[in-house]
């Protein structure tokens, strides 16, 4: 193990490490902790300039319930859900299929198609902006959740194909050969042999894509406009415009907007990290 485990060092070093840990962590998360602290204050604190002292009132419940009752925040959150969940499902369906096709079969354009998906995923998405916005307008789904979902599915398929294909390629080939010898059709091989083995990859991608899409801001402001269809990342800016200079409310709003992916991360941590660090170890 590198560095040397602290258990093997002197007791003083060990204690030093134990003390340093929380200290460094607080320093690391300071900007975030600050926002959480602000989000429980009252407007009164800001008028008297008591920004960091002991709050004159604790307004935890008031502030956070106002986020849900005094603005379109619930609508935005709901929109985010209705954009993120269908995208995740769509991407998983498509990329399981492409991963299977590219990971199992040898055919002429295999490599070309695979590289096309990877390259497409790395494209600076600004180059897609004007044409995709146009396409969405032409299809009559500008400013709808569907418009965002379709684009996200198409774009994320690139990354997910890379992921799925590599995962499937690492599966033991004998399984498939054996099934073929038994006369199992290719479609059944996909459904009954390969798909069950892909569960960990599906879980990893699901949490990862959930976070990516939930946090998307650029496409949200390019393809949607109002509270009808905008996700919470775009909604938070309208929220902040509504409560301009009410920092305690803006902070509470931000915490709410940031929360779902954070919860997702803590619940599915293992899968999340497995997905992110794919390829980090040989």
């Amino acid at each position, binding site marked *: *193990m*590198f*560095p*040397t*485990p602290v258990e093997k060092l002197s007791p003083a070093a060990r204690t030093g*490490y134990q003390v340093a840990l929380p200290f*460094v962590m607080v320093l*690391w998360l300071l*900007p*975030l902790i600050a*926002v959480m602290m602000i989000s429980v204050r009252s407007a009164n604190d800001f008028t008297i300039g008591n*920004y*960091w002292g002991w709050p004159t009132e604790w307004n935890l419940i008031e502030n956070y319930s106002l986020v849900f009752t005094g603005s379109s925040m619930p609508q935005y959150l709901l929109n985010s859900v209705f954009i993120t969940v269908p995208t995740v499902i769509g991407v998983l369906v*498509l990329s399981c*299929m*492409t991963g299977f*096709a590219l990971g*199992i*079969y040898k*055919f002429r354009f295999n*490599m070309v*198609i695979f590289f*096309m*998906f*990877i*390259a*497409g995923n*790395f494209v*600076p998405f*600004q*180059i*897609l*902006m*004007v*044409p995709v*916005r146009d396409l969405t307008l032409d299809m009559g789904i500008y400013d709808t959740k569907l418009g965002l979902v*379709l*684009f996200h599915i*198409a774009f994320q*398929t*690139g990354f997910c194909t890379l992921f799925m294909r590599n995962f499937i390629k690492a599966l033991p080939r004998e399984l498939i050969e054996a099934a073929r010898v038994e006369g199992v*059709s290719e*479609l059944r091989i*996909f459904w009954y042999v390969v798909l069950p083995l892909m569960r960990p990859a599906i879980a990893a991608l699901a949490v990862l894509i959930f976070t990516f899409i*939930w*946090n998307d*801001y650029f496409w949200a402001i390019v393809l949607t406009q109002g509270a009808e269809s905008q996700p919470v990342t775009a909604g*938070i*800016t309208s929220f902040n415009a509504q409560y301009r200079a009410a*920092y305690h409310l803006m*902070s509470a709003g931000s915490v709410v907007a940031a929360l779902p*992916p*954070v919860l997702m*991360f*803590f619940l599915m*941590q293992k899968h999340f990290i497995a997905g992110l*660090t794919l*390829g*980090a*170890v040989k």
Partner: protein
Amino acid sequence: MTSSKSNRSYWKRNQIAITPWLFLLPAMIMFALYVVWPIVQSFNLSLYRWDGLGEARYIGMQNYEELWYDDAFYTSLWNNVLWLVLYLLAIPAGLLIAIFLNQNVRGIRIYKSLFFFPFVISQVVVGLVFTWFYDPSFGLLNIVLGWVGLGPIAVLANNEIATYGIIAAGLWPQTAYCMILYLTGLNAVDPEQIEAARLDGAKGGKMLWYVILPQLRPATFIAFVVTVIGALRSFDLVSIMTDGGPFGSTRVLAFYMFEVALSEYGFRMGYGAAIAVVLFLIMLIYISYFLIKMYRDERGV
């Protein structure tokens, strides 16, 4: 009846050849429609003058000529270079934190998760959090600076340093990401090699440089690729924290392109497309690098 029978046998004979195309088709249509074709269209559009509504007019290379003399374009380009170079600091910073956290004490898992936290939060919220952190009247940064007799400085209102302030905000989640890559990498480092090196008297910096880092190469590669792409894509933070200001000093190409094409400064789709093409060409260098590396690995397998 007979035709269905012959169909089935045709399928039976050729299913191994047909199945992959069947499985690829939906994704390829989506990808062609939303990714490949728009890239072609952008290249084409960059040769036109178009407000997004009326008739597009072919103007040849005029958009690119205009770019050549556009100060805002150079500011954006320069800022992208700054982003690129400074963003790479996330890699050593992430390695440092990973080394710090790679221990087996009680509760270390929670600490690792908490350190990773910033990456999970949306960039919009990261932007807001740092905007308030920098705020000259109540931001924590200036309070801390005040303790040591400095400040206050309005980071985001000063066109000399605003971009650095935004990049610092961007480094926060990016470092967290590199950290998790390295933590996974450190976990997989061969313990026998470390022991052997220890017996040979290697430790600290030497051990890290000669024994550990070579084994972390895959993690470093991914960290590098993702960080570069992140730097070139930077948009959210600029948009949230300064909206390109003060005086356009924090624009990056991605943001400037959006501003030109879709904001109140006018709907200049062709000019925006030209900026996007330049950004794309820069990125192409990295995409090629990545693809060549992947291609070599594939052939090695």
